[in-house]
């Protein structure tokens, strides 16, 4: 059988973002997949020498618009550790609330796009309808829907009053009820199962060796989550990482589904622990030294390396994102697939090209 090369992207209706895959196919089977990156590269790590360490928060928030809150959380944690700042408890809990709301909206967004990738448009619309409730929470409590920009060095800039806390809790009850209605469709529906079960299997050993991150890793049976490091408010909140043993697309979608429901519980726990009034600590001096911080993004482990030299401009900010870590596992599972399954498998890693390339 002769080999054919089929280009996938950089502009493709399934994937909103520009990535190019050269798919080498024999008949209907993919034998090789060669990714080409660079369409979204902005070189924003180098902006550290043009913006001071406070202005860098606005830059790192825009590494990726979907998990922006968690990027700035990671960056602020690093600067705070470097400068020896103790963040007030209320601020840590508020960071947890917004980061978990972000995780929920990111996972619902992904579940919707995933449903769309195998042609289940009704499910896509239902999930995005529920997601808008979370966006409303973000907008009402912080002033913006997507890039909430709540983190500052030393704390947060917005607060929740009693009325807002009650409203968030009431909304989450409704969101949970709406989500539970869709649970059997996402996990047991025959069309969903036939397009996802046993497709794109990544074994536990391969996931570990190829350095997969986040739901990709947990979907292969490795229960590793950076929230176990107990950053922000997770030191007081009961948390267990979620994992599924199968390693196929179904397992990855189930991990994200269960994490969405888990985040509702985490937001409630954090809201119950809001006390005190301080939102920030006073910041003195300039960042000096080097630090590595890690947080769990919706897509997996995110690592920041920050180096300061006592100046207001940082010497180096290095960002390692989970989506970049998930490209080698993707290239490993694509060969041998049917051509029609490629969009499903590509989406199952939750690709985010803007944080892959920065």
């Amino acid at each position, binding site marked *: 059988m002769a080999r054919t090369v089929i280009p996938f992207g950089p502009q493709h*209706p399934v994937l909103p973002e520009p990535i190019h895959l050269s798919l080498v196919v024999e008949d209907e089977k993919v034998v090789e997949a060669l990714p080409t990156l660079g369409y979204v590269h902005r070189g924003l790590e180098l902006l550290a020498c043009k913006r001071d360490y406070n202005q860098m928060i606005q830059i790192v928030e825009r590494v990726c618009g979907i998990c922006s809150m968690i990027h700035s959380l990671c960056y602020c944690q690093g600067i705070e550790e470097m400068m020896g700042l103790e963040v007030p408890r209320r601020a840590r809990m508020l960071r947890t609330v917004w980061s978990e709301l972000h995780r929920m909206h990111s996972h619902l967004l992904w579940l919707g796009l995933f449903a769309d990738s195998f042609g289940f448009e009704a499910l*896509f619309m239902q999930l995005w309808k529920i997601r808008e409730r979370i966006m409303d929470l973000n907008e009402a409590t912080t002033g913006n829907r997507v890039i909430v920009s709540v983190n500052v060095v030393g704390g947060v800039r917005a607060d929740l009053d009693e009325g807002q806390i009650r409203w968030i809790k009431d909304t989450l009850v409704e969101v949970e009820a709406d989500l539970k209605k869709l649970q059997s469709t996402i996990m047991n529906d025959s069309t969903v199962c036939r397009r996802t079960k046993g497709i794109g299997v990544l074994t536990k050993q391969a996931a570990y060796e190829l350095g997969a991150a986040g739901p990709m890793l947990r979907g292969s049976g490795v229960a590793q989550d950076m929230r176990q490091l107990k950053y922000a408010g997770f030191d007081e909140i009961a948390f267990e990482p979620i994992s599924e043993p199968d390693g196929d697309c179904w397992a990855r979608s189930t991990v994200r589904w269960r994490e969405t429901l888990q985040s509702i519980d985490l937001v409630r726990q954090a809201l119950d622990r809001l006390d005190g009034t301080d939102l920030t600590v006073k910041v003195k001096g300039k960042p000096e030294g080097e630090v590595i911080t890690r947080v769990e993004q919706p897509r997996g482990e995110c690592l920041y390396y920050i180096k300061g030299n006592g100046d207001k401009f940082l010497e180096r900010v290095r960002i390692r994102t989970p989506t970049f870590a998930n490209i080698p596992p993707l290239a490993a599972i694509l060969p041998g697939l049917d051509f029609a399954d490629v969009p499903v498998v590509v989406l199952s890693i939750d690709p985010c090209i*803007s944080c892959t390339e920065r």
Partner: protein
Amino acid sequence: MSFLKTSQIKSPWLMHFDCGSCNGCDIETLACLTPVYDVERFGIINVGNPRHADVLVVTGTVNPRNAEILKNIYSQMPDPKLVIAVGACGCSGGVFREAPNVLGGVDKVIPVDVYVPGCPAKPEAIMDAVVTGLGKLKGILEAS
């Protein structure tokens, strides 16, 4: 006006191209299609092929690599066409205008008809931009 021209204004077909955006504007553009905003009720349909599109919605900054793709997509669209630059990055480069691999806004590469400010632009603003742009398209069609 002929039937074809009338339907181009009543039911514009829209194509979205992410040109190095941070995803914030992309998901807001996508949110326009979902039940809460639902632009399909106005006859606006999202298509994947530039040869079918009347309106090109571009989000994000331009870098040397995706500039070629953007030019290519623009040249494949049939005339008359409309380009909407969404978000601060699409308008001017936004926070990334000083970044080493960024050329600037979308108008450095292709002519832009409507600019939508905001970081990210809200779905209402994007819908408003499409309506504003259609007014311009109507003028072009009537003159032709």
